[in-house]
């Protein structure tokens, strides 16, 4: 049986978790409102990425999805239905990675190779091809695990291990583009090879931060409902998976 963390440490971890949840909530609200205020751009994205040709359907999704994001952000901010929110986070994260992985792997995998090449980090054809082969399908695999609720923390850990370096690489590339083309950083738009086509860098960074925080949230042991097998090992939920107390009550909790 694992030793429970010291009260001081536990209090610090709880504060970090609380701040992360607030940040996540704020980012979801920001993303939702961005789409609310720029509906045409979101509609174009839906039509191009999901090939939604039916105007009623695409209009319906474009009208409701941003508000659902805002609502979800409010849930996170206020802490209402936290476990349900964690399950939704797991499903959403799973769907995002399945979609992005398939987008890279299926229509034109060679196009993804070109996008990797633009980062000037790989010169060996074997290494380049291996990355081009493994990454997309690995994302699909992790997405399926999250969706089904199998080895959730292992999958989340791998997603974090991918997201951190990729975000830094994309950031570096965007900075180079901004400097060489004398453009403001947030106006830089390029296909980073993330699976969603050309994106504005600031929007991409917000998205990746959200994905990272969601994966980190799952890492703490949340989102256990509707899981086929949350953990492959027999150990029980870690200490952090216990209900996150509100700040005023953290010190007295056991």
């Amino acid at each position, binding site marked *: 049986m694992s030793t429970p963390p010291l009260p001081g440490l536990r209090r610090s971890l709880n504060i970090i978790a609380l701040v992360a949840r607030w940040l996540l909530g704020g980012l979801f609200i920001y993303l939702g409102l961005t789409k609310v205020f720029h509906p045409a751009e979101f509609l174009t994205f839906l039509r191009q990425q999901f090939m939604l040709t039916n105007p009623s359907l695409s209009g319906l999704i474009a009208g409701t999805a941003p508000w659902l994001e805002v609502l979800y952000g409010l849930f996170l901010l206020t802490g209402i239905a936290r476990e349900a929110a964690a399950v939704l986070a797991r499903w959403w994260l799973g769907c995002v990675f399945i979609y992005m992985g398939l987008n890279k792997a299926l229509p034109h995998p060679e196009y993804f190779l070109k996008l990797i090449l633009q980062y000037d980090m790989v010169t060996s054809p074997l290494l*380049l091809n291996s990355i081009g082969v493994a990454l997309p399908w690995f994302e699909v695999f992790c997405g399926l695990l999250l969706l089904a609720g199998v080895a959730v923390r292992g999958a989340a850990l791998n997603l974090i291990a991918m997201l951190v370096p990729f975000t830094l690489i994309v950031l570096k590339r965007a900075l180079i583009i901004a400097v060489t083309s004398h453009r403001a950083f947030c106006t830089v738009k390029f296909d980073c090879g993330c699976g969603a086509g050309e994106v504005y860098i600031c929007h991409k960074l917000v998205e990746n931060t959200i994905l990272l925080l969601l994966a980190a949230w799952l890492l703490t042991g949340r989102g256990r409902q509707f899981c086929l097998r949350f953990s492959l090992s027999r150990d029980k939920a870690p200490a952090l998976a216990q209900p996150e107390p509100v700040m005023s009550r953290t010190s007295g909790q056991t």
Partner: protein
Amino acid sequence: MLQEGALVAVIGAALAFAANALSPRGLLLTKNYFPGTTVALPAPVVAVTNATGVSAAKTNTPAALLSARFQAEGLQLADSNRVVQFFHDPRREQEGVIFIDARDEEHYQVGHIPGAYHFDRFHPENYLTNVLQVCLTAQEIVFYCNGGECDDSEHAAIMLRDSIGIPKEKLFVYGGGITEWATNGLPIELGPRNSGQLTNLVKTATGGPAGDLKP
């Protein structure tokens, strides 16, 4: 948790390679999809100092940069005027001058330069037989893709030069690509080669302007 993460990584990697092997669009691990030398582009703007010691900025145009890169790779850059000359060259009727579209099947079908052969370098096994003979007999071969940052035409030219031994003097790459061609209002052929369906407006697979075409 770390053990579980490692296990997921190992199983995921194994399944990823298996999925690639089973996928009809799977990549070949040992194949070099980007043949030719990788030539670093010079900086777009360089500071130069003139005889009076006053520094001035000299701008390298995109065409000059492209030309320098092609030269380093043993290729010749063809600009819009040159390509139009090739298109109206009487030798084109006897296939002394040919055009090769280096984009994928989907984009080729949406619109290509009339009479252009199709060669998708990522799947050469499907196209090589069609272009092999004509490439050997043609006197001048113009490769193109989407233009801009697209480099498929360049790599296709290098691939054919190196694999079937086409002399480099024959090879031209149209830098502006189909985007410039369409923007200039030149004719576009829809569907398969020599379909006879001509238009002067290229459509994209997503219905957007020609500039949205992916290479």
